[in-house]
């Protein structure tokens, strides 16, 4: 499912089948790391969308959680926790964070949910077929994580 009105209608009718959410965490920055943050956004979006396409019926791809790179990490953590709280109340038992920002990797323990951290691969110069192949391959790996969690529960 995506955050679009058409998908929401389906979601509301078949809520009991959707129990997983993915939140892309996208940093925003200007100046010297502007390009990096944009690459991260590109990459996470591609990965998120492909995962959603494959697991459309059980997984909710939420709008990205965006923040400034310089933002205070305590406040960020609080904001993120309030997202998670809301999602759990909604019945989305499995919450994943999808990001390329290594800042989160350092604080993985505090997140409380699974962090899918993928170091960014700059894609702007790749030709389309190759890009697709890489994304497919990466998503396949993520699958293993998600499917394994599903099988456990």
């Amino acid at each position, binding site marked *: 499912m995506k955050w679009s009105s058409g998908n929401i209608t389906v979601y509301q009718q*078949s809520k009991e*089948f959707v129990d997983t959410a993915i939140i892309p965490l996208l940093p925003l920055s200007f100046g010297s790391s502007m390009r990096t943050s944009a690459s991260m956004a590109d990459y996470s979006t591609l990965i998120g969308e492909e995962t959603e*396409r*494959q*697991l*459309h*019926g*059980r997984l909710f791809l939420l709008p990205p959680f965006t923040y400034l790179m310089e933002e205070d990490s305590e406040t960020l953590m609080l904001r993120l926790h309030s997202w998670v709280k809301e999602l759990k109340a909604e019945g989305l038992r499995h919450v994943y964070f999808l990001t390329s920002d290594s800042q989160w990797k350092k604080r993985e323990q505090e997140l409380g949910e699974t962090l899918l951290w993928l170091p960014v691969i700059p894609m702007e110069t790749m030709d389309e077929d190759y890009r697709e192949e890489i994304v497919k391959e990466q998503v396949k790996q993520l699958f293993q994580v998600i*499917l394994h969690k*599903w099988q456990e529960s």
Partner: protein
Amino acid sequence: MSKEDISRRQFLNYTLTGVGGFMAAGMLMPMVRFAIDPILEKGASQDMVAVTEVSKIGKEPKRFNFKIKQKDGWYESEVTQSAWVYKNSKGELIALSPVCKHLGCTIDWNTDPAHPSQFYCPCHGGRYEKDGTNIKGTPPLAPLDVYDSQVKDGKLYLGKAKPRKGA
């Protein structure tokens, strides 16, 4: 003299009728065109896309990707689609859509160890026979969609995925 056969009044009459007719036609044409537009519209049928060579298709379902043009409002983009293609026992080519009829996840062939040689949906355990028929007792309520297919010059062309009646 024949030159004087047309009087000034007649000449003006002809001219005005002619010009008036043009103007009226100019106004009516678009209206008529609007009114009958639905008839003239080309069928929204999607062009067939070459997917693979027939010789690469075997008895075991295999996934092939192909690209179609999708129009989203004004924005036209290429979207990758895939199809599970195989030859059935009669030698006919079958191309099935990989989209689960339950909630739209992507199905895979032969990935559930407990039920080999079936299509399996990882989301809610939906299963389908090789011919795409949904298996009773699993979530999907309809068989997998089948692509319109055509073979030309040894190549397989696929069109739109069409739904079938439920089992």
